[in-house]
């Protein structure tokens, strides 16, 4: 089992809890009577215990466990806080910190904490410095430090065992050692218990069943069982559970039982009597001596820090401002032509580019966050449709801007449902077509340039061109003659027109004609594109192209008369020079021939109603070829200024619905340039 991915999180959270613990301890020292503070420390210790036990850091878990016991007494008013206890708690805290740091540095987090544990136990049992607390009744929970010897039986258990012996049953003491490489120790232990329970009665176990369930034991545990079976049979049963390294089965009679308990008591007494001395002599904790060689192990764990999203957004905004100034500095330096200035600005450009990359990366989240819920969803839908499907996800680690992640879920759900509902055939149909009964849906994400692609591909029946055309004609989206001339791609794109649905049967999933057009508008709103490829009988693939980020884009700056505009590079196919006399009139529309295609050509100046500057029309025109889906168009501009990274700014709510303008950016000279929404220029 891969624990590494949780390790970073564990370390971060542990540090957080230690921090809280430290603060609270300091506060507690000043207000020893404040139970609320004790509560806080208790909570931190408790969480730490749980986390470290889960992660398998035994020493950490056992120390926090003992701390918890002491704190529990304090918060229940059974123990009065004094400076000595605070000292011990601080000492625990130091050890905990050392262990966590050791883990962070790639160590195993092992530390001899038995001394501190003993001190804590001494406090619990009231022996510590003759504390005024009345003697505690139940013995301290056995910890790993003295795991086997502390298997003490209480009076009741002893009686049960003795009675069992008298009634002719056999009593065994069994110690099970689990393989050191076992990851799910608790599960193995549970299997052992299960095996034993089938043939015997478990009277007592050490550590307790709860502790074993929470994996709070090292590699071994022991139990007392009552049974009729032979020792070998018992051993065999236990060894049949895998990953058990060793089993010891000892038969007990009455005398040995008594002896056993006495022995355990003596051990406990001995431990107790030693403690006061140890507690007083706690000059230097053991961990100090062991630390250096652990630190040398080196930091292998990547360190993370959790940051408020608002702060990241703020950082992003500040960076945008910086980029605006950078562009301004660049043009200033060009004007002034001072060598030193140019050099400095160049350096600034490099640094700020790196900075921009880092900040953008900070906002990136793996698409996993969205993909995670799909397997379950696909399973459920497939079941309701009586289809068999195998979802294959690849590239879940591909990262996308958080804003895009938040928005992309719904469109993807729609596309997946679409594939399940319309794409994949029923098992019978698949069989008839000579395919495997189980269909496949591939969900892929990958990077390419400044874009992230998400593909949803099925190996279903593919899109039926004729059916799409029929449906489109029926819905008056196109007329028949138009349809015959359309390429497959154009036909498939009809699926994205609003009010279109090919499903003959309307299901509750999709097929109400509100689907793909919504998907398309959502993706377009994110600055992305969606396209579809399909082969009849083989399958369909939807490709969603998304920008890496939404706030900084590459754009081509152009001039129209005295005005400057930006055209997003993502929608530009290329720039070219064309001759004005090549423009032809087709059906009253200006068209031009471009790479074997006749495409519409428009004068941006006319569309945007630029004031006439009296610039003479030349024979040669600068044109920008833009693309909207599969359609191309040429835009006439006065000048191509160049490519630039621009920071997107909104025009604000007052001008939110302006024709052909998607936003604005601030140029180096402080002027605002509008960003052209090319999609609205291509019909």
């Amino acid at each position, binding site marked *: 089992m891969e624990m590494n991915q949780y390790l970073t999180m564990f370390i971060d959270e542990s540090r957080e809890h230690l921090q809280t613990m430290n603060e609270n301890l300091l506060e507690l020292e000043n207000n020893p009577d404040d139970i609320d503070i004790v509560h806080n420390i208790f909570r931190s210790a408790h969480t730490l215990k749980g986390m470290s036990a889960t992660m398998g850091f035994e020493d950490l878990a056992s120390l926090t466990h003992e701390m918890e016991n002491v704190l529990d007494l304090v918060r229940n008013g059974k123990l009065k806080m004094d400076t000595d206890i605070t000292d011990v708690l601080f000492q625990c805290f130091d050890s905990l910190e050392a262990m966590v740091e050791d883990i962070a540095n790639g160590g195993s987090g092992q530390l001899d904490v038995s001394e501190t544990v003993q001190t804590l136990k001494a406090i619990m049992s009231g022996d510590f410095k003759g504390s005024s607390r009345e003697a505690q009744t139940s013995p301290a929970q056995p910890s790993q430090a003295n795991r086997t010897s502390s298997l003490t039986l209480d009076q009741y258990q002893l009686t049960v065992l003795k009675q069992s012996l008298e009634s002719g049953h056999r009593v065994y003491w069994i110690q099970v050692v689990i393989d050191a490489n076992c990851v799910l120790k608790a599960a193995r232990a549970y299997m052992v218990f299960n095996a034993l329970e089938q043939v015997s009665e478990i009277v007592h176990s050490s550590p307790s069943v709860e502790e074993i369930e929470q994996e709070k034991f090292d590699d071994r545990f022991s139990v007392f069982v009552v049974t009729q079976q032979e020792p070998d049979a018992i051993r065999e049963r236990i060894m049949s559970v895998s990953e058990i390294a060793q089993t010891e089965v000892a038969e007990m009679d009455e005398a040995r039982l008594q002896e056993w308990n006495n022995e355990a008591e003596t051990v406990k007494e001995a431990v107790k009597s030693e403690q006061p001395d140890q507690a007083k002599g706690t000059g230097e904790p053991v961990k100090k001596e062991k630390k250096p060689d652990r630190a040398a192990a080196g930091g292998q764990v990547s360190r993370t820090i959790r940051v408020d999203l608002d702060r990241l957004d703020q950082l992003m905004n500040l960076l945008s401002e910086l980029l605006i100034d950078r562009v301004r500095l660049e043009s200033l330096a060009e004007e002034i032509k001072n060598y030193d200035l140019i050099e400095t600005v160049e350096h600034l450009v490099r640094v700020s580019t790196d900075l921009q990359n880092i900040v953008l990366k900070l906002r990136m989240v793996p698409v996993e966050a969205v993909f995670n819920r799909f397997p379950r969803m696909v399973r459920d839908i497939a079941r309701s449709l009586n289809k068999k499907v195998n979802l294959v996800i690849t590239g879940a680690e591909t990262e996308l801007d958080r804003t895009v992640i938040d928005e992309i879920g719904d469109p993807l759900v729609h596309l997946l449902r679409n594939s399940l509902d319309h794409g994949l055939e029923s098992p019978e149909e698949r069989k008839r077509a000579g395919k495997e009964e189980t269909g496949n849906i591939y969900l892929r994400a990958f990077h390419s340039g400044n874009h992230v692609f998400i593909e949803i591909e099925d190996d279903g029946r593919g899109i039926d061109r004729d059916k799409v055309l029929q449906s489109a004609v029926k819905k008056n989206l196109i007329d028949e003659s138009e349809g015959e001339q359309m390429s497959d791609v154009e036909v498939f794109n009809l699926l994205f027109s609003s009010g279109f649905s090919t499903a003959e049967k309307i299901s509750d999933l999709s097929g109400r004609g509100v689907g793909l057009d919504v998907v398309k508008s959502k993706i377009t709103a994110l600055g992305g594109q969606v396209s579809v490829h399909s082969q009849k009988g083989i399958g369909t693939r939807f490709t969603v192209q998304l920008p890496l980020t939404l706030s900084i884009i590459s754009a081509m700056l152009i001039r129209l008369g005295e005005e400057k505009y930006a055209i997003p590079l993502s929608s530009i196919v290329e720039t070219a020079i064309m001759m004005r006399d090549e423009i032809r009139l087709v059906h009253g529309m200006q068209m031009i021939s471009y790479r074997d295609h006749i495409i519409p050509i428009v004068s941006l100046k006319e569309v945007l109603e630029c004031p006439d500057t009296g610039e003479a029309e030349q024979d040669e025109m600068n044109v920008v070829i833009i693309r909207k889906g599969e359609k191309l168009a040429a835009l006439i501009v006065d000048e191509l200024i160049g490519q630039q990274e621009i920071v997107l700014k909104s025009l604000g709510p007052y*001008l939110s*619905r302006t024709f052909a303008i998607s936003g604005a950016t601030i140029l180096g000279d402080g002027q605002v340039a509008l960003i052209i929404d090319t999609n609205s220029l291509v019909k």
Partner: protein
Amino acid sequence: MAEELKVIVFSLGSETYGVEVGQVRSIERMMPMTRVPKTPAFVKGVIQLRGSVVPVIDLRGRFGLEETEYTDNTRIIIVSINDMEVGLIVDNATDVIDIDEDRIEDPPEIVGGIKAKYLRGVAKLDDDRLIVLLNLVEVLNKDEIVQLEQMEEA
């Protein structure tokens, strides 16, 4: 004692107007603007203000008054209503004064060619000056712009 209202005083033609200080972000001198195509004529364009892009409208044009040449006294009052920042071009911005709420009266049907719905009220000052307080929410009402656009297109 009635509440006092702090207003920024500006003029359009011969009339004096006021907007509440709380709605004003700043007052700027005229600066170069970027024209925004296909917007009503009174939308003069957008300006860059401390890193953000702010639309600017000519208040004269907005109220259907005759637009005049901009002078050294021309100011852009940047107001913020419902998170919407807009610059208003006015002939000049002269003063900040306190007005007794009690002195604000309902506006007459029309003041200096401006319809009552754009007005919040009229206040008479001690020196007998009249100040017309604008109802910016109505002045910047977007629905009306859409209607205006449709009228122009028709």
